């Protein structure tokens, strides 16, 4: 009896150590290959000082990506009015996927349907693999994920990875913006417009304290409410 107990304990410990080691190894390997992989890392800047709240981006996104009514991949949130009549103004901010480097949705997805595209750094969804457990929707600190009522899979902004980007065009929202408030580009290309914009302006990202390292930057409007 004593002997069998000891053997059992040894076996269990070995099993646990092996399993932990293996899973750690695969995780480390995955992050290593992502680092080494590609020379493209897409990001976006929303210049809130240029945004007029026309929602052309919302309309274009819906058309290009065939997003059903009732759900949306991008929303322009509005606060205001600020100031006194007749010189009033509003503040607009973009609510859409932040394409986190360390994405909670990707970490929690049980099937790997939520993934980070190694080529581009875009956080994307494989609708076929998705079973609709909604863990990713609960995990996203930015509340940008939703269940697509047509496919029944989780859905969200993928920088038009399967539509405009695949055709060599800018994302629909960027192309549609009349005031050029949206800049999209490759962070690893130091000559790209987005890198120039990021160098020239102070920018902010949402909820950085959570350690998600988002890739959606905002240039704050100079006017507007000071939020504590």
């Amino acid at each position: 009896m004593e002997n069998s107990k000891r053997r059992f304990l040894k076996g269990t410990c070995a099993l646990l150590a092996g399993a932990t080691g293996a899973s750690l190894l695969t995780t480390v390997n995955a992050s290593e290959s992502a680092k080494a992989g590609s020379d493209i890392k897409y990001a976006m800047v929303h210049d809130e000082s240029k945004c007029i709240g026309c929602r052309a981006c919302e309309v274009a996104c819906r058309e290009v990506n065939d997003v059903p009514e009732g759900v949306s991949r991008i929303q322009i949130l509005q606060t205001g009015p600020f100031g006194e009549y007749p010189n009033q103004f509003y503040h607009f901010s973009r609510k859409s996927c932040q394409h986190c480097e360390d994405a909670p949705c990707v970490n929690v997805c049980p099937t790997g349907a939520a993934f980070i595209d190694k080529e581009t750094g875009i956080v994307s969804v494989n609708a076929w693999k998705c079973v609709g457990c909604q863990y990713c929707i609960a995990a996203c600190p930015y509340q940008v994920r939703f269940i697509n009522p047509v496919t029944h899979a989780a859905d969200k902004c993928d920088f038009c990875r399967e539509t405009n980007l695949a055709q060599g065009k800018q994302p629909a929202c960027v192309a549609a913006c009349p005031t050029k408030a949206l800049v999209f580009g490759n962070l690893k290309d130091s000559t790209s417009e987005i890198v120039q914009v990021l160098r020239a302006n102070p920018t902010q990202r949402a909820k950085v304290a959570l350690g998600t390292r988002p890739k959606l930057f905002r240039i704050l409007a100079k006017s507007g409410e000071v939020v504590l």
Partner: protein
Amino acid sequence: MSKIKWLWSIRLGAIALLLSFSAMSAESPLQINSDTACMKCHKRNGSMLGHHGQDTMKMSCSSCHGEKGDHPKKPNDLVVFGLQEGSDLDKQLAVCRKCHTPKKLSAAEWTHNVHAKKVPCAACHKLHSATDPMVEMTPKVRSELCSSCHAGKQE
């Protein structure tokens, strides 16, 4: 045989009556369009079919455009509405603001607040047509309207 003919004539008569009735209601001459002083010349500009023309509002052309005065012979004080070829901005705004207070406008639509005293109402609203294009716009048409002015601007 004669009975069937008879029935048919009643049916045709009824249809003709209905048709003439609907044709009449389509034309439905609003009181404002029989304003002879204006319509003598302005018939070619089409008639006033919009919300402000309904009889119960008891408005005339001059309610908005001002008194005829020396028009069309000499320079006059008539108000012309529009973004490019309209009267002075303040003059246009003053007419609308007689009834439409900033508070009500603000409650109806946020874009009123940011455009107040910057563009005339007629830049977007068209009051003579049967329906104002600003009523029941699709999101696409709406955003296109914004970019028709804002495009390319770096403000």
